[in-house]
């Protein structure tokens, strides 16, 4: 019988064609899926591939998502998106999602991610795929060139840091608050480029899209991958999104698997907010009351999925945002937007005074659109580095969609729990409306 292994070890071992791997070993892994977008992908890959005279190793294992520079705001954006579209057509790429939303949300929504897979993405938030029990991590464009020409990538087998969340979250507290609490405790490089595995009762109770929020911000923790062991919630979600049936049983950490364990109490967790200019600069929402805001932003792969839109709508139902506040909502995918429309969620947001923005990366990365200079912003996105959202003089606070919505109503950073008190519990099952 082999030694107890972590989920990360098992995933890497499978991709490396080995029975067992040890943390610290350098191995070569076969890549099951390579995802890239208009910014990191074709504009960089196409000229390098042409120079090499090389071909993509397996087009069926490549997914292109056009999400960063759409809708095209200027000539440079049009040029970048044109390169992506022309190259996709010329290469006859079978999996292209153009202007349908943000890659980390669109790719699993179309059934591309399954437990047991080994995947890379040309974007730092690629660990999002770990929510599905896939080992997925972000790489740069040149390393992506190495992957698309060979189908392989080297990896130092990670140690596992178990983030164990005991108890259950209170109403109005979400995965985003869990992640901000972990960042506050461990810092932006606390993951030390190892694998983080989120576990415990509170994680098992999370909806799939909430798990995606955790895995997504593994990037901010500095982890290479952020994993959640697949379970019945995963199976149900995959079945509903067209992924083939898969045996999830092998994909868990063995008892006594090696690793470091940090424990957290979900039951006592209050909404958390990250102050400018670091996601690790975290405090409880009550310490910031009366911090006046100009902009409330619900967007990005981190904070504008269907479940995030629903959270905002629960707070905003029957309310109006403060007169001096602008609430911007950029749903993470067209599919999430459609479902939110069908459920009446979008109507609730519009009635409260929200402005709807396109389903794309938007101001989160500051590549095209931007928040106004000098503004104070509360945002459901992942990063508040100085200037990140396109305005060097903006003050950006990060919070959950609940916190952003509550702050929009009060005009200052606010605790959504007070505004949710007495409201009926919402369902988090997708497909119900």
């Amino acid at each position, binding site marked *: 019988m082999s030694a107890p292994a972590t989920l990360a070890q098992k995933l890497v071992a499978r991709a490396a064609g080995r029975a067992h791997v040890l943390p610290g070993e350098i191995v070569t892994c076969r890549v099951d899926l390579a995802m890239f977008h208009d910014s990191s992908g074709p504009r960089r890959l196409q000229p390098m591939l042409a120079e090499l005279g090389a071909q993509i190793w397996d087009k069926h294992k490549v997914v292109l998502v056009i999400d960063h520079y759409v809708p095209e705001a200027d000539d440079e954006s049009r040029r970048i998106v044109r390169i992506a579209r022309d190259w996709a057509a010329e290469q006859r790429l079978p999996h292209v999602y153009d202007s349908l939303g943000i890659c980390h949300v669109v790719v699993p929504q179309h059934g591309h991610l399954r437990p047991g897979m080994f995947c890379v993405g040309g974007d730092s938030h690629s660990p999002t795929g770990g929510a599905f029990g896939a080992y997925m991590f972000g790489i740069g464009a040149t390393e992506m060139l190495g992957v698309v020409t060979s189908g392989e990538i080297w990896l130092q087998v990670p140690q596992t840091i178990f983030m164990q969340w005991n108890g259950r979250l209170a109403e109005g507290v979400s995965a985003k608050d869990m992640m901000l609490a972990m960042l506050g405790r461990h810092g932006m490089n606390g993951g030390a480029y190892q694998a983080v595995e989120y576990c415990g009762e509170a994680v098992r109770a999370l909806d799939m899209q909430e798990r995606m929020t955790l895995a997504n911000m593994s990037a901010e923790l500095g982890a290479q991958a952020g994993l959640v062991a697949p379970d019945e919630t995963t199976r149900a979600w995959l079945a509903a999104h067209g992924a083939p049936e898969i045996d999830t049983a092998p994909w868990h950490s063995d008892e006594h698997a090696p690793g470091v364990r940090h424990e957290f109490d979900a039951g006592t967790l209050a909404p958390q907010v990250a102050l400018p200019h670091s996601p690790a600069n975290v405090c409880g929402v009550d310490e910031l009351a009366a911090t006046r805001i100009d902009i409330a932003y619900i967007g990005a792969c981190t904070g504008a999925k269907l479940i995030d839109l629903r959270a905002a709508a629960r707070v905003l139902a029957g309310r109006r945002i403060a007169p001096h506040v602008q609430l911007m909502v950029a749903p993470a995918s067209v599919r999430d937007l459609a479902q939110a429309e069908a459920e009446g969620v979008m109507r609730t947001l519009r009635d409260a005074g929200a402005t709807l923005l396109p389903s794309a990366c938007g101001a989160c990365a500051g590549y095209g659109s931007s928040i106004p200079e000098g503004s104070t912003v509360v945002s459901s996105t992942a990063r508040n580095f100085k200037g990140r959202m*396109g305005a060097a003089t903006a003050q950006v606070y990060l919070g959950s969609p609940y916190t952003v919505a509550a702050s929009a109503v009060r005009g200052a950073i606010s605790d959504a729990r007070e505004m949710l008190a007495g409201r009926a519990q919402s369902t988090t099952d997708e497909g119900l409306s």
Partner: protein
Amino acid sequence: MRTWKLPADVDTDQLAPGATMKHGIEVTARHCLESVRPEFALAVRPGDVIVAGPHFGIGSSREQAASVLVHLGLVAVIAPSYSGLYFRNAFNVGLLLLTCPEAGRIDDGEALAVDARAGLITRADGSTLRCDPIPAFLLDMVDAGGLMAQLKRRLMKPPERP
């Protein structure tokens, strides 16, 4: 050759600001580190070295945050720790990163000698600082000028002999 001292947590948005990402590397280079050391982009010279605090390169996967330093002629970054994603990107584009626990002792503007294979930094006063070992295949990648240069050698057919 001089050192440029930078604080902890230098992020990819400071190295390669998002608004410059739709333009070429020349434009990104003009704005590199402008929010940390506004004089850097104009005053940096080929052969210079960055000495930074912990967690250098946190944030995005955009490798322009590493290739911009190659473009500006930096020969190495020395810091106690890096974002793991940045670490990979740097070697892939031919930028040497030295992990030096005592990097904080180096002064701004100091002249250094760097021996990557030996993992040794020699300071202006002759004292030495030790760096964490780097796998040989990554040192080879930097010596070759990055992964693209290696792939050219590996994948491109040699020119036909006359």
